[in-house]
């Protein structure tokens, strides 16, 4: 907790860190909007890289202060009216600052990478503006210690995801992908908003610490508690692309690769971190914990299986991201925050590296179809090396990051729920199998027409990739430093062996898998059905279409029809009726004063009688 003395200035100003990213948006605007054309969009890119560097350095300075003097908390008042107080509070603890460094560091590398990847892109400035927005929102989410601020920034993240996925908005697939990304996340966000509003109304506080103490004493009815819990987990479920809200991450691969790097590593990490912060409140709802375990397991296994059936190099990796997040969700639901953090960290750096390597492949070959790639191994050594290291870092095959995290995870599961340990091992094995398959298809084998002229990538892409390769190689050392649980290697030898052996088994299986490219679609009927089921992601898009989409479309059609055929028709009918009756009454004009006086008298009497009822 914060010391009594005023914190150093660098800590006091920590609320600036998310603003660096947002400032990048403003700085890139003159180029992005076309006010400055003559110089080309490069300055916007440099400015954004510079502000990201600033954010990273500011974060490091705060981190070193916190390492020295313990955590701080700062609060910026934002809105106060009636009996409502909303403030932006930031938690400057070791965990959140480490996550911040992860976010800003990977953002820095991804932006550098983008300089090379989007070399000829005409709207480079717009891309960097959006990345700045993205990074600012993420930096805020990891630092936030107030549910309100977290929600605020998560929604901004949704918006920036929409704009980044829709970056190449002229292509039809991109447009649907952007729409799906936004709407899926929005469903999660609206549910989360319900939870946030309910918490704000019931607890009256928004800081996580205050909410924890409220939750400890709250006497909610089981229904209210469960609804609250389900609403709160919906946001992270959408952000982390968990079943049934996983489709968007796969479609989002239509966006530019540098954004995919961030999305698959740090954005999903942000979602999981939010869930971690919500955990003590979720104790109010046992149902939501069960739901987390169930959906996490489902996504871990289902996502890994679907990944194996994909032919698109980016999509196969994105499904494995969903699967890894499923494992994280299980760990969180089983009250293993330390292990969840380690898994998140190891996965984030490893997956970012995999996506960089894949980005290099795509940039060089202009192709992301696995069946058209091959034989890149000897031509692109740095890329190959990065893929291998990234793959090793995200699986339990070699003692890099994920091996240790998964080992701890399995050990912890064995104590409480052994079948979950089996799921972890199975998901890991399937991921190994898939990565082996992808490696063989892309880097081994004979050259394909599209991979004949494939030199190694330019230095703007190679430099961040190689740096990240080194970082992944030293991940275990970093994990030892940030490790909040007792010892990185505190799991038994049988656990380690089982992890290694299942991984190795999957590796061998992956090597032996027949991968003739002409035969990528099997002719065996049952196998074919299975393959299509997985390749089309259990037909999730069709399930969406016949459920939620059909529901909303049907209701909206009904509403529109009701509006046209009942409300509006009634009005028009009254209108034409009065016109017609006027036409008819015209004929009754007689000129007899008696009739007029009689009509008038009757009307007046009627009116007065009705009035007398009113005044009664």
């Amino acid at each position: 907790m914060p010391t009594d003395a005023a914190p150093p200035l660098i800590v006091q100003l920590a609320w600036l860190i998310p603003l660096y990213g947002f400032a990048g948006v403003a700085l890139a605007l003159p180029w992005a909007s076309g006010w400055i054309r003559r110089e080309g969009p490069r300055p916007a890119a440099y400015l954004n890289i510079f502000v990201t560097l600033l954010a990273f350095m500011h974060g490091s300075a705060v981190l070193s202060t916190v390492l020295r003097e313990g955590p701080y908390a700062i609060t910026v008042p934002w809105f106060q009216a009636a009996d409502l107080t909303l403030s932006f509070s930031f938690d400057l603890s070791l965990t959140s600052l480490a996550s911040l460094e992860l976010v800003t560091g990977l953002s820095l590398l991804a932006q550098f990478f983008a300089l090379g990847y989007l070399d000829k892109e005409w709207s480079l400035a717009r891309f960097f503006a959006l990345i700045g927005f993205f990074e600012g929102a993420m930096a805020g989410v990891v630092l936030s210690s107030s549910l309100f601020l977290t929600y605020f920034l998560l929604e901004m993240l949704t918006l920036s995801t929409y704009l980044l996925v829709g970056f190449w908005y002229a292509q039809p697939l991109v447009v649907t992908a952007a729409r799906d990304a936004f709407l899926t996340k929005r469903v999660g966000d609206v549910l989360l908003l319900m939870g946030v509003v309910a918490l704000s109304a019931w607890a009256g506080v928004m800081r996580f610490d205050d909410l924890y103490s409220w939750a400890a004493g709250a006497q909610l009815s089981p229904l209210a508690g469960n609804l609250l819990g389900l609403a709160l987990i919906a946001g992270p479920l959408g952000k982390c692309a968990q079943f049934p809200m996983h489709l968007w991450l796969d479609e989002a691969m239509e966006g530019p690769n540098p954004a995919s790097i961030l999305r698959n590593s740090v954005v999903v990490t942000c979602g999981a971190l939010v869930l971690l912060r919500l955990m003590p409140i979720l104790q109010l709802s046992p149902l939501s914990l069960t739901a987390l375990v169930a959906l996490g397991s489902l996504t871990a296994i289902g996502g890994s299986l679907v990944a194996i059936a994909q032919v698109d190099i980016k999509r196969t990796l994105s499904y494995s991201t969903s699967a890894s997040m499923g494992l994280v969700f299980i760990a969180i639901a089983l009250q293993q925050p330390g292990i969840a953090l380690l898994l998140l960290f190891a996965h984030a750096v490893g997956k970012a590296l995999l996506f960089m390597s894949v980005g290099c492949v795509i940039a060089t070959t202009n192709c992301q179809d696995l069946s058209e790639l091959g034989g890149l191994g000897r031509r692109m050594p740095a890329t190959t090396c990065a893929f291998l290291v990234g793959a090793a870092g995200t699986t339990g095959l070699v003692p890099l990051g994920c091996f240790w995290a998964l080992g701890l995870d399995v050990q912890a599961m064995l104590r409480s729920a052994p079948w979950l340990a089996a799921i972890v091992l199975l998901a890991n094995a399937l991921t190994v199998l898939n990565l082996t398959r992808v490696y063989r298809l892309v880097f081994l084998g004979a050259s394909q027409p599209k991979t004949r002229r494939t030199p190694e990538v330019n230095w703007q892409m190679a430099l961040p990739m190689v740096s990240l390769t080194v970082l992944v190689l030293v991940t275990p050392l970093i994990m030892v430093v940030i490790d909040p649980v007792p010892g990185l290697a505190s799991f038994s030898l049988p656990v380690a062996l089982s992890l290694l052996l299942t991984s190795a088994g999957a590796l061998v299986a992956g090597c032996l898998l027949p991968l003739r490219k002409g035969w990528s679609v099997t002719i065996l009927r049952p196998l074919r059905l299975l393959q299509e089921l997985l390749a089309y992601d259990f037909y999730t898009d069709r399930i969406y279409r016949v459920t939620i989409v059909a529901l909303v479309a049907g209701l909206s059609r009904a509403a529109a029809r009701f509006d046209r055929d009942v409300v509006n028709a009634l009005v028009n009918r009254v209108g034409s009726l009065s016109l017609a009756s006027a036409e008819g009454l015209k004929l009754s004009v007689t000129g007899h004063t008696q009739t007029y006086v009689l009509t008038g008298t009757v009307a007046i009497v009627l009116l007065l009688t009705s009035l007398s009822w009113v005044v009664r």
Partner: protein
Amino acid sequence: MLSGLLVIPLLGAIALLLWPGEVSGERLRRTCLALLVLQVAWSLWVLWQFDPTISGLQLEEIAPWVGSLGLDYRLGIDGLSLPLVLINGALSLAAALVTSTSTPRPRLYYALLLLISGAVNGAFLAQNLLLFFLFYELELIPLWLLIAIWGGSNRAYAATKFLLFTAVSGVLILGAFFGLALATGTADFSLQPLLGQELGMGVQLLLMGALLVGFGIKIPLFPFHTWLPDAHTEASTPVSLLLAGVLLKLGTYGLLRFCLGLFPDAWQLMSPWLAGWAAVSVLFGSLAAIQQQDMKRMVAYSSVGHMGYVLLAAAAATPVSLLGALFQMVSHGLISALLFLLVGVVYATTGTRDLNVLRGLLNPERGLPITGSLMIAGVMASAGIPGMGGFISEFLVFRGSLVPFPVPTLLCMVGSGLTAVYFLLLVNRVFFGRLSPPADDLDTPLPVVPLARQIPALALTVAVLLLGLAPQALGTLATATTTAMSRASQHLAALPVSAAPERLVAGGRG
């Protein structure tokens, strides 16, 4: 001092009409702009004089007028009307700015514009029921003319529909005011809440019902909304902007000031039904918007949805929800004005508003990139993305209404989710995708929108962002008034607030 807000536009309108000789359209436009700038400056001066810590009326001006009728010239301003007066000034100016310089019959046009602006100011400032009604009706005629003369092809139908609906609304309101005088036996039309046992509940309900329907037509609430899409479709851009941005707010203002203010007991009795009505209105407006193929109609139906939040907040009548109602009025005014403005730009450059025809307008070389970007900002603000005006308003409304009315509030949140559905459809169809020009002129770019015409849209976007990022200013301005309004109906809020937690949170700090 408040009279200045009436005198400037109203006398200005008369002066424009009486200006002798042939006057060029450009000159009339300049004069009108100057007057509107003066009006904005005047309202800023009122803002400067305003003391936000006082909850009651300020800067009152009272002069007896027709005493025998109970009609006094009585103006006053508080935290509820001041923001609306400011919005009215700003949006009138924006409407005049975006009016095409080649508008036919400019003299009448600008005079009517000023007349509307002055009448709306009058309605927001009037503290006498009859005076309010005078201004409320005064604004109808010019708007009707603006639609009927400068409207689109089907303008006669739309204008007549508008006139009939709003005339019925006026009759109901006037009837309710007279009924009130008749029932209380006083010919005093000053604005005082009807306390306790003065009137039987049946009469109160009847009078309030008439007012509700009257203002419900104006807001508009389902099922009285059907004039709005037609009026918007046929009205020209500046008129749509005024209609959505300012005139609809007269309805919600009346709801808060008269229904809630005059009949707290009847309001309390009806509030669960009103919350349900709000939810129906929100969901209906949002669902109907999804099916619209005309950009203007879509935005119009979104208005139906978004104005429903105000009814929900008014029904709850907690301090936070009433503040949210005001926020929602202000933010909806800004956002819908922005959206109509941008739709107007699209219509002016492409000649169509059909979602099935328009494609890829975000194209940076041949399309409307700035308009498209602002449109994305506008629809995101409308969908309630934080950092923009829509979010904080909706948050306040929901936060204030959840405890008294949990189910309607949750349904309204679903409506807020649906906003994203239809506006995403709009952006995806109109601005994303490939720009496909007609086959015969492949390389003709769309006409470039001059920067001067972008300025109102840019200014509105900035205002929406400011409201979303720094809501404290508006909060400070309005809190005292809205809290007092809520307290005036305290016994009304007390019942549902204490009842709901028992249902949902036993023992939580409700």
